């Protein structure tokens, strides 16, 4: 009996802490006003239409950008690195940058996938019946789109870094082998 009471107390404490957490979380977000909710409902169709168009455009962008990013890794960086190794030249900086690029490319793929899934989830929500859930989902999708954008910025900086390394290598090569 005593053990049973202890278990019940633990269960109540756990449920209570989770519930309290929920309340705190809800309090952290500014409550939406009725006017705001009404605006979301009123513009529901237009907003969804805009998001659908954006979703489709971004899918095309992902395919086109993805092809270019992939080709830089497989058709430019990898062949040059291979040649440097075969010619017994110092390839270490190039290999490191190519490795960093590959990791960032993987991060970009994952980030875009998460954004795409978030956008699909947003578009499935009925914004007339669930305006608050719809708004929260839009905020989440926006954050994931921003993270995808940041992933592309990082990729661009690595592309520039590799280009700079090639330039430095070429300059040294020209001075060492006139």
């Amino acid at each position, binding site marked *: 009996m005593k053990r049973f009471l202890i278990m019940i107390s633990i269960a109540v404490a756990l449920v209570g802490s989770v519930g309290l957490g929920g309340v705190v979380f809800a309090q952290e977000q500014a409550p939406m006003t009725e006017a705001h909710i009404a605006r979301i409902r009123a513009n529901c169709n237009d907003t969804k239409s805009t998001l659908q168009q954006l979703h489709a455009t971004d899918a095309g962008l992902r395919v086109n*950008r993805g092809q270019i990013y992939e080709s830089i890794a497989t058709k430019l960086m990898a062949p040059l690195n291979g040649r440097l190794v075969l010619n017994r030249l110092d390839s270490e900086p190039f290999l490191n940058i190519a490795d960093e690029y590959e990791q960032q490319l993987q991060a970009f793929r994952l980030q875009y996938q998460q954004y795409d899934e978030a956008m699909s989830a947003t578009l499935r929500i009925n914004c007339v019946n669930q305006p608050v859930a719809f708004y929260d989902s839009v905020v989440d999708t926006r954050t994931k789109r921003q993270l995808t*954008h940041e992933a592309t910025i990082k990729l661009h900086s690595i592309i520039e870094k590799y280009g700079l390394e090639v330039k430095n290598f070429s300059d040294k090569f020209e001075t060492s*082998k006139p």
Partner: protein
Amino acid sequence: MNEGEHIIGGEKLSLLQQHRFLLLILGSVVIAILLTAVSLKLYASSGAAQLDLSRPGYEQVADKKAPSTVFEGFPTVGPINKQTLKEFQALYTKRADQATKVDSFGGDVMNDATLSIDAPTE
């Protein structure tokens, strides 16, 4: 012998043995459903779905997809000299410009105001 009982070579066939053809078909259907479910799961989780512009709703962008011109890239085998390095730099700069000139997934297109879901000012 009761009606419905099957005897081959003096041995009575069990229910499973009697309906083995039906079981074969059912088994094949179950295996096909399982493999299809696994394939769909992989299609969704691997990121292949995101590259598939033949999905419903993407027809208009599928036409706008850049034509897949064959980019030969830099030859894998060969010497490293001034000439090859220059060739590489020219190829790389061109491709890097294509990659970096577009500000992908940026901008304010998902702003509350742009989507007309911002809180109205009183």
